[in-house]
């Protein structure tokens, strides 16, 4: 009895020692992980913090990690529109990004459904074409598009050139993501809909799209983000400065006033606001979107 008890005690002792060592290692891993991410995200911290500093603090000999005097000067400076109106840039970016999102979503949902659910000659080639176009650099189509758009009157005081060009990035990405999504849905969905007397179009609109909503949201978000981050199309196709997206505004701003970092960072902070919000809400979808779009497709 005594021997049994003591041996049982011993095992429980070693077990607690093991678990405490384990939880210690857990703690260490968590702390190291937080430190890695903190270092990694420092540029974003620096972006936001600098926008709340005064100009004199930015150029002080000693760099401060937190503003000594918090100020909104950098933001209010932009609002009076003396150089470049920050709200106007924001609005322009939003128009371009939403325009892109609409075109890209409306075209890519049926295309993805078509390549995922119907077998027809050339379907693999079409998927491959979407995959390849997704990888092509914007610089490749920039010059010919500029000339064509000029002929069509889409260069200058219009958002259309930038919207139409940005959709060429959103469409292939959305098709690839949505294709994997539609492909995983059971075949019985369409069969039972057909028995119930639904036409192909009603099946698509009333049954398939609603089921695929999570995938559709990912596709929409990426189309939006591509266009939101675009610089090259916005600055090349939009002639009038007051219609250019916020990225092009930053580009111009950096060219002329290379020293007022707080103002530039205020620009940056405003323009990453939608990105950060989207990121917070759909983070887990983004990871799956990235892996699906980039690898599996």
């Amino acid at each position: 009895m005594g021997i049994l008890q003591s041996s049982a005690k011993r095992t429980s002792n070693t077990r607690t020692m093991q678990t405490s060592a384990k939880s210690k290692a857990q703690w260490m891993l968590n702390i190291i992980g937080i430190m890695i991410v903190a270092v990694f995200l420092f540029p974003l911290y620096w972006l936001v913090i600098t926008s709340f500093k005064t100009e004199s603090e930015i150029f002080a000999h000693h760099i401060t990690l937190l503003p000594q005097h918090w100020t909104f000067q950098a933001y209010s400076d932009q609002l009076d529109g003396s150089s470049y109106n920050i709200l106007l840039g924001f609005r322009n970016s939003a128009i371009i990004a939403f325009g892109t999102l609409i075109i890209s979503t409306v075209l890519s949902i049926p295309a993805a459904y078509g390549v995922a659910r119907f077998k027809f000659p050339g379907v693999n080639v079409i998927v491959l074409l979407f995959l390849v176009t997704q990888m092509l650099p914007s610089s490749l189509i920039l010059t010919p598009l500029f000339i064509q758009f000029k002929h069509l009157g889409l260069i200058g005081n219009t958002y259309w050139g930038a919207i139409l060009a940005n959709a060429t990035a959103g469409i292939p990405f959305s098709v690839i993501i949505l294709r994997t999504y539609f492909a995983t849905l059971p075949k019985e969905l369409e069969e039972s809909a057909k028995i119930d007397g639904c036409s192909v179009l009603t099946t698509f609109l009333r049954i398939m799209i609603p089921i695929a909503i999570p995938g559709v949201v990912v596709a929409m978000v990426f189309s939006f983000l591509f266009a939101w981050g675009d610089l090259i199309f916005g600055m090349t196709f939009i002639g009038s400065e007051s219609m250019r997206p916020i990225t092009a505004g930053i580009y111009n701003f950096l060219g002329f006033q290379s020293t007022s970092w707080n103002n530039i960072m205020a620009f940056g902070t405003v323009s990453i606001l939608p990105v950060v919000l989207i990121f917070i809400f759909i983070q887990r979808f983004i990871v799956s979107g990235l892996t699906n779009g980039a690898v599996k497709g």
Partner: protein
Amino acid sequence: MNRVNKLKTWTIGYTFVLPALLYMLLLVGYPIIDNVRLGFQNVDMSNFIQSDHQFVGFQNYIDLFKDGTILRTLFNTVVYTVLCIALQFVIGISLALFFNQKFALASRLRGLVMISWLIPATITAMVFKYMFALDGGIINNALMSLHLINAPIGWLVQPELAMLSLVIANTWIGIPFNMILLTTGLTTIPKDIYESASIDGANAIQRFFRLTLPLLRPAILSLLVLGFIYTFKVFELVVIMTKGGPVNSTEMMSTFAYKMSFDQFQFSQGAAVANIMFIVLLIVGFWYFRVVHKEEVS
């Protein structure tokens, strides 16, 4: 399935795909072909709005190579791309392995790293330009307060350092991409392989080089090729951080093509540069397909 049904399915399939396909053919397919035409013609600011242009054969390409800048930009872009891929891969796989361990915050923290991939490159470029700044940049400041340097370094004004700064900025963007794809690769490796390996007495480093890396080979291969294609087209980072300078030392193919077309308005020369860029990417793409195809066969 009978013939009529088959034809019906085909028609429905094509109808669904057609709008997006036409859009891409018109706005990407046609411009790519048009680029080839532009490269063989003489199109600039004075005549681009007209419809017929003089055919000049390979003159644009000859001019480009005579000038020599094109070779410099090709060299720069390849150096930049290779350095970026190497750095991103090393950091990406380290982070993937670290966050692949079991601890409470692992997946949450790994998710947070993703954000650098989503930030518009223009903004990233702007922040890094500030961090690398000669005057008031935090990197110089930190190095000086650690007494590693005595005077501020001109990160963005010395040729090699400017390239290095661009590589560092782009690595920050590319790490999540590498990390996530490698994490996905790691989940496909069965756990019991490691258990039998540690019974056989393999230590952690041996297990990494003899097991993990070879098993990740397919993931690594596609990662490197995709990384090459995505890194090769760098534009925003360069135009914001260095504008291709000092003296062309960070001029890339994409920024050079842009300068030709929209600073000098030599549209044909710009198109020719873009075509050369396209050829490089095609070669890499074909090489990848051949390797993948070979591996699938064997």
